[in-house]
């Protein structure tokens, strides 16, 4: 827990939500029995996927453990989406082993993955903008009371649970009655995460949750990723931004052109190494030259990049 707190500090702090951190772990209404911290939930070994003659992914290995964040990094077209789809149950893998709780599986549908507690939060978040936050939170799985024609939504429970669950994730909403469209992108992302956690996720797959967000909002989302991890979930964090991955990640899996470039625990890697590996050292150097030519040697971007190259 103490190491986690240090990690969170690397993230741009968001003052609005700072006071809520002490609520972690006190509220976990719908949360399932989570496995012990560090226990392996998902293990993929030499997994691969081909669409006909096109090999989208091959020989990828990594693991997802309770209370840890596994980051999947890679540029566009590196195979991240294919890997997520396999993990989420949307596509079946064509080679290798996909082991959940020690049992090798072939998952045929997202529903099968959900039944195993593997929930995916996609970029479009599956929210209905014009509906209030509390209706969105329970959409599709609404609690009801009463019988027969009097069976109705348990609105009090829905509102209170929404507020409490969001607070447990550190989101302090003024009013759960506001349309979810009025929330910022980061907050919406967090509502989607909180919803997945409440409905029994043990493993949370986040598909580029920070891609469309500004610096501050990205920070907010990273903080909630840390929160989910602290609650004991295994998190798969897909991103192309090593600066977002490094602060919260426990292990990093790099993909390039459908192949794994390695699976590194955090202890074996510095941020600079990660950045360099992501972009490829030579490509970065070339970019540095190009930038200094077009922006001038004095420009801050060029200098920063040059400095980063020197540290390697």
């Amino acid at each position, binding site marked *: 827990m103490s190491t986690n707190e240090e990690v969170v500090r690397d993230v741009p702090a968001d003052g609005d939500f700072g006071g809520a951190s002490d609520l972690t772990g006190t*509220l*976990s*209404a*719908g949360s399932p029995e989570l496995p012990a911290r560090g226990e392996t939930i998902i293990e993929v070994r030499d997994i691969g996927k081909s669409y006909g003659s096109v090999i989208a992914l091959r020989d990828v290995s990594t693991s997802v453990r309770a209370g840890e964040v596994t980051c999947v990094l890679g540029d566009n077209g590196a195979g991240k989406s294919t890997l997520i789809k396999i993990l989420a149950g949307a596509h079946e893998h064509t080679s290798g082993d996909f082991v959940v709780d020690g049992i090798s599986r072939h998952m045929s549908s997202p529903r099968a993955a959900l039944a195993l507690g593997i929930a995916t939060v*996609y970029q*479009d*978040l*599956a*929210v*209905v*903008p*014009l*509906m209030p936050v509390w*209706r969105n939170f*329970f*959409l*599709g*799985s*609404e*609690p*009801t009371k009463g019988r027969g024609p009097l*069976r*109705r*939504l*348990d*609105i009090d*429970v829905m509102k*209170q*649970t929404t*507020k*409490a669950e969001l607070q447990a994730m550190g989101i302090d909403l*003024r*009013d759960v*009655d506001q*349309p979810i*469209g*009025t*929330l*910022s*992108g980061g907050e919406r992302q967090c509502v989607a995460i909180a919803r997945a956690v409440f*409905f029994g996720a043990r493993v949370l797959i986040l598909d580029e949750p920070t891609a469309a967000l500004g610096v501050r909002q990205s920070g907010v989302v990273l903080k909630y990723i840390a929160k989910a991890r602290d609650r004991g979930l295994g998190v798969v964090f897909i991103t192309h931004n090593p600066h977002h991955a490094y602060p919260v990640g426990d292990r990093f899996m790099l993909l390039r052109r459908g192949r794994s470039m390695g699976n590194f625990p955090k202890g074996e890697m510095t941020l600079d190494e990660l950045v360099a590996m992501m972009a490829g050292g030579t490509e970065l150097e070339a970019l540095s030259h190009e930038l200094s030519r077009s922006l001038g040697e004095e420009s801050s971007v060029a200098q920063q990049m040059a400095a980063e190259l020197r540290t390697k």
Partner: protein
Amino acid sequence: MSTAAPAAPPEQQEPDERLAGSDRTARILRRPEVGALVAAIAIFAFFALTTPTFDTASGASTWLLTSSTVGIMAVAVSLLMIGGEFDLSAGAMWGTTGLTTGILMNEYGANVWLAILASLVVAVAIGVLNGVVVMRTGLPSFIVTLGTFFVLQGVNLAVTKILIGQVAVSGLQEADGYTAGQQLFGSFVTIPIGGSDLTVYAATFWWILVTAVATWVLLRTQAGNWVFAVGGAQTSARQVGVPVFATKVGLFVTTAVAGWLVGMLLLFKTTTVQSVTGVGQEFIFIICAVVGGCLLTGGYGSAVGAALGALIYGMVGQGIVYEGWDNDWLYAILGVMLLGAVLVNNWVKSRAEAVR
């Protein structure tokens, strides 16, 4: 799923302290039906002040009846529109169901309840057909139901001519069992108010019932939550497990059944039904729903608002007569109201979606 919610700290049950009182008022003012309520009051006041008969009990009886029949449809159509679809066949359904029951009773001597049930079955079948075709083909419901509308219009005329050699069913009061059906759909009560009698037809009670049930379903049940969701963001709704297909087909069946109800109300009140009954009304329902706060794009609206929209329609239609104006102005006024309502609704929507 687990409903064992945590016992929230007591202070959370209080409104958040950041919600000022004015904010709550503002939220009530943002409800979809508020605009229609204000407009209804203003229109009532205008005609009450400028004509001698509009606000008398006998004067009100007339516009209440129009509002009721249109209102039942507008409420059902508003649910469908919140669910993101249109039904242009809803008006022609009046004729289809009225003719079915009327011909069965008049020409074939069918039992009144069987005849009523038969037209209900026809209505449900057409509703299911509309819904399934829209969902299976992915075509806009505007086009699909436009097709159904023309088919019904043609069938109403052609089949009626084949079966009875006329284009209308009349003299239903001669048929066996008419009085039983009339009790349920065509009766009225008179309430003496201020020297004249307010005649309230069965249609008005049905209207109130339909509005109350629709509001309950929309705001308090799981199905209502799904209606908002399939209209607001269909893909998202599907991703979180909302049965999109069943919800939408159910909505098409609802408007069809509303059409059947009004078909019965008209048949048993007037004892006659024309082949063209209801044709041309389908846009009136949509206008009433939009005036009541429904977005044309779905996901937002209210059943009470649609009922108020129908009340406005009834009042304006009869108010023009009492004023001695040319009745043709009704459509011009409706057009202006529709445009105004759409502008207001879009403004409300953009406010609701704006990032704070």
